[in-house]
């Protein structure tokens, strides 16, 4: 059966817009988030953080803090005895970044506002925070590096021992970029900038660590618990089997939560010292300065075209500000931006120079759609500029250059140095684009600066591709219980996506059971032998496939066992509603609950058919794709932009649950649209973060959020996995900055406003409008 037939052979649960079983605990206040974990004799930690962007530490006096009633201990770097461990890179091992790793606590130098300097453990959080004020740190401030230009210039150095702020510098290409440009009849080069912002999940980071002398348990794990356990074991010199990382309910992740941060070492280490459970919950101010930032990237992009709009070459210099240290996410976003710069277009000749730069700002990590949000903005903006220069329709220009269905699989080359070459594995980009335009009613929308009631209307489009399904593998385990219930265990984690319902849907079809038969457990290191976690839109693609394999295996084993014991042929039996039945008269041959009881009583054969483990190994990345279209109205006097309608369309191969998939698309789009106008982490020249609260760091509210039409296509099921699924969690955000920027530029085209940078915040857009008016005078 090919991938397409598998989708057509749709059965009951997969594909149904089922409401989530997990909702009740969230709606009634009985969920258990990290700060809801409460242990006997638990004490509380608070972190002293650097107020300077770049400074030497001359001395730390903790005497007064230690003497504060209720304080158990104050830890600084000197308390660790011996060399401090370094936090390594988990993925995207960009050569050179290993010279910029962070210690969990600063010893003699701080490099960003928010870097941990001391940890207080006290009987209450109130006491711990008060004691922070009694720690005296003697700093000698140094000149900070606060911009990409300063980092490149290298007048001040973030890490003197390295001798440069350039952490990595490499070149990737496909075809012959110089040859391509030699054929160009038109070229245009622009410098673009995407701003520093972050995910800001509603629950901040946090954890509770308890050590009983034999076992270390840490609640609050998410994203990649197995990797983090391996790391923590090494850093604490414990065996992995003596550490459990336990997943709680998680209030949003979006890539930033669950990586290994300094506190992921400090808090467990402190719990081992004080021999009482230690809770640490990040406050919002800390979150904005200590949790990974993202996206700050500049790009010099040049396109070569024929007069008819055929792209003949693309070349770029991509520079990203990674902040003060290389975090676990290494150079993911920076490496993905060059990979996705050519996007879904037929660009045979492409080259990109990449610079990883360090500065005295908070380190960066991955945030939903890393590198894609930035790259799509750069490319789609330049395409519209080129279309305007050549007098071409921006839709026709894209249709001319989109890779056609006949050209797929399309080789995108080796654009990430430490990876092999990749292919777009399936799809019809033109079909997706046409459907997005039709859904918003593109042809009849007012655009190109049409003035209605004093506002200028514009429409912007953006086409994209998006990779998902990172390997190597994922585990699942299914247990049939004597009471008729089934337990599904998965190595992936969940931060709100609804995997509990989706995994139950997948297993329900294989075992022909209602959803209510299942309980889904995920994330914690005790559940499966090995897990790889949730990132790169892999939970369904890889984790869901493992669940499907485990359920298939359970069905086959139970039918085989029933056949052996009854003497009937397996082909004459089927599994339904917790029993193996004869196909001819539907009479019961074997009750699975009895089998589960027998397994409990020691029947090895019964156990083998009721306790199933599976591991799905994925051999290739899979690429979803789609188009976004935005319709905006801009008040040219106030620079107020209203997004009137928005289509976020993505082909995700196979939609397991349309209700949840639409939720990902709408939520992602609003996050991305919001970021294009609001979210910005702003630093002043001294390296102080001046958007360190939710009063300053703005995110879209219900009155900002535009109406979004989510469209999920299933035209190109993936051959990479038995579900046919492609990632669905990031397609909503990746093209949002691009589409709204193009729409605003289109609205303001009569004024000649040039848009090359995000965000389009009120002040910046107003300044651009003023500049355009001055120029036209």
């Amino acid at each position, binding site marked *: 059966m090919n991938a397409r037939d598998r989708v057509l052979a749709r059965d009951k649960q997969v594909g149904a817009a089922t409401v989530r079983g997990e*909702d009740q605990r969230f709606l*009634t206040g009985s969920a258990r988030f990290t*700060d809801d974990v409460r242990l006997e004799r638990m004490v509380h930690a608070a972190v002293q953080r650097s107020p300077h962007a770049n400074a030497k530490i001359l001395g730390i006096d903790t005497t007064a803090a230690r003497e504060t009633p209720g304080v158990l201990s104050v830890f600084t770097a000197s308390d660790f005895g011996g060399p401090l461990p370094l936090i390594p890179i988990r993925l995207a091992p960009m050569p050179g970044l290993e010279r910029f790793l962070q210690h969990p606590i600063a010893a003699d130098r701080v490099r960003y506002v928010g870097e941990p300097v001391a940890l207080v453990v006290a009987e209450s959080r109130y006491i711990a925070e008060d004691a922070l004020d009694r720690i005296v740190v003697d700093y000698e401030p140094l000149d900070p590096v606060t911009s990409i230009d300063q980092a490149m210039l290298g007048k001040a150095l973030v890490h003197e021992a390295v001798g440069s702020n350039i952490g990595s510098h490499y070149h990737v290409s496909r075809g012959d970029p110089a040859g391509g440009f030699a054929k160009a009849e038109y070229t245009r080069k622009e410098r673009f900038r995407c701003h520093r912002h972050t995910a800001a999940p*509603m629950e901040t980071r946090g954890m509770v660590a308890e050590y009983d002398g034999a076992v270390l348990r840490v609640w609050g794990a998410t994203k990649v618990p197995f990797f983090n356990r391996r790391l923590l074991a090494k850093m604490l010199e414990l065996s992995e089997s003596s550490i459990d990382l336990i997943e709680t309910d998680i*209030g949003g992740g979006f890539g930033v939560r669950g990586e290994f941060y300094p506190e992921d070492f400090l808090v467990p280490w402190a719990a081992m010292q004080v021999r009482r459970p230690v809770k640490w919950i990040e406050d*919002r101010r800390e979150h904005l300065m200590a949790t990974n930032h993202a996206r700050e990237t500049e790009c010099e992009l040049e396109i070569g075209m024929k007069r008819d709009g055929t792209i003949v070459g693309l070349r770029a210099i991509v520079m990203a500000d990674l902040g003060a240290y290389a975090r676990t996410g290494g150079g993911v976003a920076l490496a993905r931006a060059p990979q996705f710069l050519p996007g879904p277009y037929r660009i045979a000749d492409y080259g990109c120079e990449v610079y990883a730069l360090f500065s005295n700002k908070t380190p960066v990590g991955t945030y939903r759609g890393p590198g894609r949000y930035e790259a799509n903005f750069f490319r789609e903006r330049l395409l519209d500029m080129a279309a305007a220069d050549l007098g071409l329709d921006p839709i026709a220009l894209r249709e001319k250059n989109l890779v056609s269905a006949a050209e797929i699989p399309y080789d995108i080359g080796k654009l990430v140095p430490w990876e092999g070459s990749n292919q777009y594995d399936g799809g019809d980009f033109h079909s997706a684009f046409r459907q997005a335009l039709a859904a918003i009613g593109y042809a009849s929308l007012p655009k190109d600066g049409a003035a209605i009631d004093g506002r200028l209307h514009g429409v912007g489009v953006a086409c994209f591709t998006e990779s998902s399904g990172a390997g190597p593998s994922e585990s699942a385990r299914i247990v049939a219980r004597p009471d008729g219930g089934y337990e599904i265990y998965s190595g992936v984690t969940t931060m709100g*996506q*609804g995997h509990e319902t989706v995994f139950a849907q997948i297993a329900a079809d294989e075992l022909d059971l209602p959803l209510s038969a299942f309980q889904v457990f995920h994330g914690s290191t005790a559940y499966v032998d090995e897990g790889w976690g949730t990132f790169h839109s892999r939970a369904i693609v890889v984790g869901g496939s493992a669940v499907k394999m485990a359920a298939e295996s359970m069905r086959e084993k139970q039918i085989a066992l029933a056949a052996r014991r009854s003497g009937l042929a397996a082909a004459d039996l089927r599994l339904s509603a917790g029993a193996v039945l004869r196909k001819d008269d539907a009479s019961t041959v074997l009750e699975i609950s009895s089998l589960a009881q027998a397994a409990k009583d020691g029947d090895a054969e019964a156990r083998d058919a009721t306790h199933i483990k599976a591991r799905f190994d994925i051999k290739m990345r899979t690429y979803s794709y789609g188009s976004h279209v935005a319709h905006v109205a801009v008040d040219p006097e106030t620079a107020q932009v209203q997004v009137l309608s928005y289509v976020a369309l993505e082909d995700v191969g196979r939609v397991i649950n349309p209700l949840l998939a639409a939720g990902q698309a709408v939520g992602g789009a609003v996050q991305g649209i919001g970021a294009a106008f609001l979210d910005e982490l702003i630093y002043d020249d001294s390296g102080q973060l001046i958007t360190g609260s939710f009063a300053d760091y703005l995110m879209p509210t*219900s009155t900002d959020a535009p109406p*979004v039409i989510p469209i999920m296509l299933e035209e190109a099921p993936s051959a990479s996995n038995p579900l046919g699924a492609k990632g669905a969690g990031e397609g909503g955000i990746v093209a949002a900055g691009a589409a709204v920027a193009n729409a605003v530029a289109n609205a303001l085209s009569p004024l000649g406003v040039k848009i090359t940078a995000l965000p389009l915040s009120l002040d910046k857009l107003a300044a651009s409008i003023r500049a355009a008016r001055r120029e036209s005078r």
Partner: protein
Amino acid sequence: MTLVDFLRETLGLTGTHIGCEHGVCGACTVLLDGESVRACLMFAVQADGANLTTVEGLAPPGEMNDLQRAFQAFHALQCGFCTPGILTTATALLRENPNPTEDQVRRAISGNICRCTGYQPIVRAILDCARSRATATGEGRAK
């Protein structure tokens, strides 16, 4: 001690969440004598003698009321962290204005930040709950 710390630490009512501790995100919203307030911006003693409702009190234990069921039906929550604050805010809205327009719903919950849903399903869930209540009490216009 702040009201939200009192609810969570002293009473063990952990359904009320802390998202920013400076009154912007709305995750800690509770009903104080029926009015929605930020539990992170007041001291517990200021609530002395008042009638407080948290998310735990919206329906009998183990049950969900019509608003909560509408949130489930419309997939108006993903991570669920902001949800208790939005439910209490919407409860106050529907008591004061049982038949709100979409614009009024959006304005009412504009002090509650949700990072997951994009608000669209939340607004629909609240409107649907209002319509169902109006129909049930015979006051609603057929739509």
